[in-house]
C-alpha cells in the first residue's frame, strides 16, 4: 500500500516565477491538505481539498492556489514567487472525517522549494 507521494523532491526557482507541486494521497484517502514548513518551524496550514473543492484555507495569500482531481490527487500552485516562499511543502492525506475513524493525516516526504 503506497503512502502519500509528492513530486518533485527538490525544486529551485527564481523570484517572480511560478511553481506547481504534486501530491498523490494514501490509498483510501480522499482529503488532501497542504502545509508550508519553514526551517525550524512547525507545518503551517495552507489549505485543504475535498471533493475537488477547497474546503478550508489558512492565512496564505491568493498567490497560493490548488486543485484536486477526480482521483483525489492534488496540486499546489504558487505564483509570483518570493524569497520567503522557500520552504518544505508537505502534503497530507486523510479520510473525510478522520476524527471519527480515530485516524489522522499521513504526510508525504515533502518538496523542498528554494527561491533565489
Amino acid at each position, binding site marked *: 500500500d503506497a503512502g502519500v507521494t509528492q513530486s518533485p523532491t527538490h525544486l529551485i526557482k527564481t523570484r517572480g516565477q511560478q511553481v506547481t507541486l504534486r501530491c498523490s494521497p494514501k490509498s483510501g484517502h480522499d482529503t488532501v491538505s497542504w502545509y508550508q514548513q519553514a526551517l525550524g518551524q*512547525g507545518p503551517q496550514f495552507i489549505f*485543504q481539498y475535498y471533493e475537488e473543492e477547497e474546503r478550508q484555507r489558512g492565512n496564505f495569500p491568493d498567490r497560493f492556489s490548488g486543485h484536486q482531481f477526480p482521483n483525489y490527487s492534488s496540486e499546489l500552485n504558487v505564483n509570483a514567487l518570493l524569497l520567503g516562499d522557500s520552504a518544505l511543502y508537505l502534503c497530507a492525506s486523510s479520510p473525510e472525517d478522520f*476524527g471519527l475513524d480515530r485516524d*489522522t*493525516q*499521513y504526510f508525504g516526504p515533502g518538496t523542498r522549494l528554494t527561491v533565489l
Partner: protein
Amino acid sequence: QQPVQSPQAVILREGEDAVINCSSSKALYSVHWYRQKHGEAPIFLMILLKGGEQKGHDKISASFNEKKQQSSLYLTASQLSYSGTYFCGTELVNRDDKIIFGKGTRLHILP
C-alpha cells in the same frame, strides 16, 4: 489559535524520561502528536480525542485534559531513536478537520 508547546528544546541521556506539553486557548476536539527527524516528513504517533482516554504504545504515551485544553506527551526510558522534533497538532471543537501545529519541541537524546 496556534497551540503552544513547551519546552522548546530538551536534552536527555538515554534512559531518562521526558514530558512535552501542548496547550490551546481554544476548545479542542482532538490533539495529534507527530515526530519529525531532520530532513524527513512528520510521522504520526497518536491521536487523542475529546472524551477519550490516555493513550500510549511501548514507552510513549499521552494524555488530554479537556478542561484545560492541554495535552502532554510522555517519553519513558528514552532511546536514541526518540531524538527529533515533536509537534502537537490541534483540531478545534467545531470539527473542521483542520489541524494546526505548534512550533515543535526539539528532543536530543545523548548516549
